[in-house]
């Protein structure tokens, strides 16, 4: 599937300042891996050393929150996967 991955501004320095990156992938988790293949330096912001998604990474599919167990749900052509980092400053 052709999917648009949108990255929040905190991650854009790792995507050459692109907000939208076109990737292919059948699931959100696959799209993240394909994003990482294009931009390897984003890896440490998304995954821990065991390859698990970091707890502060929030994924939204077509604007709706997708929890961890939903990241392997099938995507459709044209879907949007939005990567947001949870922040805690006040």
């Amino acid at each position, binding site marked *: 599937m052709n999917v648009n991955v949108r990255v929040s*501004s905190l991650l854009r320095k790792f995507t050459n300042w692109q907000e939208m990156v076109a990737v292919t992938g059948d699931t959100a988790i696959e799209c993240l891996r394909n994003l990482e293949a294009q931009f390897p330096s984003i890896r440490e912001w998304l995954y821990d050393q065991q390859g698990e998604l970091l*707890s502060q990474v929030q994924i939204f599919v077509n604007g709706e929150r997708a929890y961890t167990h939903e990241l392997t749900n099938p995507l459709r052509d044209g879907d949007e996967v939005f990567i947001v980092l*949870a922040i805690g400053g*006040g």
Partner: protein
Amino acid sequence: MLSQQELARYERQIMMPDWGEAGQEKLKQAKIMVAGAGGLGSAVLTYLTVAGVGRIRIIDGDRVDLSNLNRQTLHSDKDIGRKKVDSAKERLEALNEDIRIEAVGQMITEENVLDLVADFPIVDALDNLAARLLLNRVALRRNLPLFHGAVCGFEGRATTMIPGQTPCLRCLYQGVLPGRIPVVGVTPAVIGCVQATEVIKYIIGIGELLTSRLLIYDGLSLRFSETKLRKDPDCAECQSTQ
């Protein structure tokens, strides 16, 4: 009953058709607890104060540091070393003498959070997830609204949580970006004003609240976007209060 001074002070907002003297009276009778007198708290507290929320409780255990002053506009150079709640109270009382400000100079802990919150609606203007989640727990158990904001750099988030109707903070957060958070003062100002807007609408009962929606503010692109939130079926906090 609004005094002549209050009618004059709030004239420009009472003019709004959905607001009126009745709306202003609701604000006067209302109470709110603001946890955090930092960057977010400076904006939230300023605008709730000048809007005329009758009773505001501020909770913060920190003291003012020079490095706070790029964003925490309730405090100034002369306040360095003072408790933030004291300088905040002084500043807010100078902005509006017609309301009551309570300053509680304590850190929020598991032991004191129930007493500190009591039955006040909660503004979460904190800077750490552990304390935010304590407020979340109390909000759920006591059925209190929680107005959440968070910032980092030029980015901000806000959402309004209503127990039983919306996801809770634990649904939203499994973790946050670790480390010392960079921030420019305009970002908590934007998000704090969003939180204050939500509180005012909630109290008066107007408009549409930011419920089950996460507002994402990107100051660098100057764009607001929004995502839908829903309850995490595995959320222990939601399950424990059902």
